[in-house]
């Protein structure tokens, strides 16, 4: 097998070949999720700890289901019910988990760099389920898998990502993934949310007017505006945000007529995306979620070192 990564820390370290292997593997695993008996013995006897120190619905469930369908023993711990609330450090938490011989630790954490921190200190594989504003590799991979399904290619696609670019790990991972696969990325958000040097991360162009950003694109990806972060320093109001940076039935027509609409979830209906568009024919949001399980099965399988997929 030519996938040589022990950890999945980010897309930044991956090559185009790595990404293609992951996507092809995900395609193969996707079929299992439609079976009556959604189980293959691929990771039987492996222990996977999902350590989620930030709230999550999709990613957490997705990793858990992915592990279970591969017959691994998956265990979830969440920060709020762990001894982290008693002040236990991340290092001690990791070392104690490691003492119970897991094969993979999947970590979501609010501090950028936490998966790297862990990978330097434990012997098992570490999979990044989202670290601060840094990377969310499995999200970008499922996004690209979804685009590939609907558009038959990634190369040459024009993908617009709209929202709070500064605080988004989804954006960074998507920039790396799409750029390596030959797509073009257009970013747009309020002036307060465009970080310096973001164009350097890949094949990126930054727009300040959303109408220009989404004109004739193949894919529109809307990011959640994070109100708990905002206070009134970054934005005057959600009303204004929705007006200038929200996707609605009118401005969605600026994109190509067969453009697809994506969102990593959870959505703020009526803020960054109107319900009409979110539930409309162009949206592939639930396809993203479905593909998320397949992508995560692929990632867990690929880092496990197990020789064969055993999907038949």
């Amino acid at each position, binding site marked *: 097998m030519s996938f040589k990564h022990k950890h999945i820390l980010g897309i930044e370290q991956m090559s185009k070949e790595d990404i293609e292997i992951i996507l092809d593997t995900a395609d193969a695993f996707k079929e299992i999720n439609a079976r009556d008996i959604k189980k293959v013995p691929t990771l039987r006897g492996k222990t996977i700890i999902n350590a989620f120190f930030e709230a999550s619905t999709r990613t957490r469930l997705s990793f858990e289901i992915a592990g279970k369908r591969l017959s691994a023993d998956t265990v979830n711990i969440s920060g709020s019910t762990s001894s982290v609330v008693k002040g236990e450090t991340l290092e001690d938490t990791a070392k104690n988990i490691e003492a119970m011989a897991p094969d993979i630790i999947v970590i979501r954490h609010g*501090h950028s760099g*936490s998966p790297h921190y862990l990978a330097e200190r434990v012997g098992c594989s570490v999979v990044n389920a989202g670290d601060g504003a840094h990377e969310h590799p499995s999200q970008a991979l499922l996004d690209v898998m979804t685009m590939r399904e609907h558009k038959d290619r990634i190369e040459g696609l024009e993908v617009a990502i709209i929202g709070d670019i500064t605080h988004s790990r989804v954006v960074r991972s998507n920039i790396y993934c799409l750029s390596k696969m030959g797509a073009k990325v257009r970013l747009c958000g309020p002036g307060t949310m465009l*970080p310096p*040097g973001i164009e350097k991360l890949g094949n990126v162009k930054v727009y300040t007017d959303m109408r220009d950003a989404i004109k004739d694109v193949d894919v529109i990806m809307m990011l959640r505006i994070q109100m708990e972060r905002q206070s009134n320093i970054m934005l005057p109001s959600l009303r204004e945000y929705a007006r200038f940076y929200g996707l609605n039935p009118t401005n969605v027509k600026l994109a190509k007529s067969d453009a697809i609409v994506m969102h990593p979830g959870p959505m703020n209906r009526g803020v960054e995306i109107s319900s009409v568009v979110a539930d409309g024919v162009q949206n592939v949001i639930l396809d993203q979620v479905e593909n998320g399980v397949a992508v995560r099965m692929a990632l867990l399988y690929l880092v496990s070192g197990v020789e064969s997929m055993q999907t038949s």
Partner: protein
Amino acid sequence: MAKILIKGGRVISPAQKLDDICDVLIEKGKVTAIGRDLEAQGAEVVDADGKIVTPGLVDIHVHLRDPGLEYKEDIASGTLSAVTGGFSSIACMPNTEPVNDNQSVTNYILNKVKEEGHCRVFPIASITKGLQGESMTEMGELKGLGVHGVSDDGKPVSNAQLMRRAMEYAKPFGITIVTHAEDLELVGSGVMNEGPVSTELGLKGIPWVAEDAATAREIMLAEFTGAHLHVAHVSTKGSIDLVRQAKKRGVNVTCEATPHHFTLTDEAVRGYDTNAKMNPPLRSAEDREAVRQGIADGTVDAIATDHAPHHIDEKNVEFSIAMNGIVGLETALPLSLQLVEDGLINLPKAVALLTCGPAAALGIPAGQLEEGGVADVTVIDPELEWTVDAQQLVSKSKNTPFDGWKMKGAALFTIVGGKIAYQR
């Protein structure tokens, strides 16, 4: 007390405009003679052929952490670290527990230095009581104990009116106001320089304007009040330029730069290395170049380490929550000599930046080498090559970004008051 005769070294003391191959004779704690072919019966002879002899080095920005935070460093270990680095005089910052805003703490420090210290320590008191930023420390009383400067270092004095009054009050006492200039609102929850690297790493950034806006305010207040302002740890192009222009206008302002700010950039943070986390943060290549230019053209008066020891438990955590600061006493000299190697400045200028420059900036009696003066002398081997091993640092704390670095130049002898406080 021993007689020491330092023979044949290149004696450089910019304060005395001295740069000559000659001998230095030390007796009873004083420099009794500087000249050629000196002889002294019963003297310990130090062969300084090929070496540099300077006034004992001076670091005006050191956190000794004593009283209260002795698990990081204390007066004994911090002063030992200082003399190991060639420093015979240091100034210690008041952000201890309790804060040094009164006679008791100042006297505690001075007494402990007498008992356990390896070098001279000049305490810097706080500008505001308890570092609360609300009312002034009793500077007049502390001046009487030998305090020459005040600073709320670690924090800015956010209230401009209070800073104005502190400057007006300090001025007749001849006390230097040392400012840690930052606008806390602009800093926000930033943990590294705001720029392409912070964007890539997904870490919150501290924009250069957070320092420059605050520096501009301080300089204007200094210009308005006529007080002596010393700007601590200048890290940006903008701040260097503000100081440069202010000096041209005749404002009584000085500034210092740290070795890490003239050596490293925010690229050092890649990999989320917490030993590259400090405040002010490592900045862009452009800022580093501006600091270096400021050193070359005289805008920067002093090299000061901002030696900030932290325990391993405080650094061995995720980058966002690691404490700010690195140690610096034992690596400052070779990093400063590197500026000479790089052709940025000549050797006498480097010596000035580490001796009379800082002494004058803070207003402390140090950095001199003259007949009849105190025998604080450092003998340096500028060619000695060595590798930094963090675990072997004398400081209690090992938080340095220079672990594993090959250095050139080291102190062979650090003499304080005529006694050899450190010998390599």
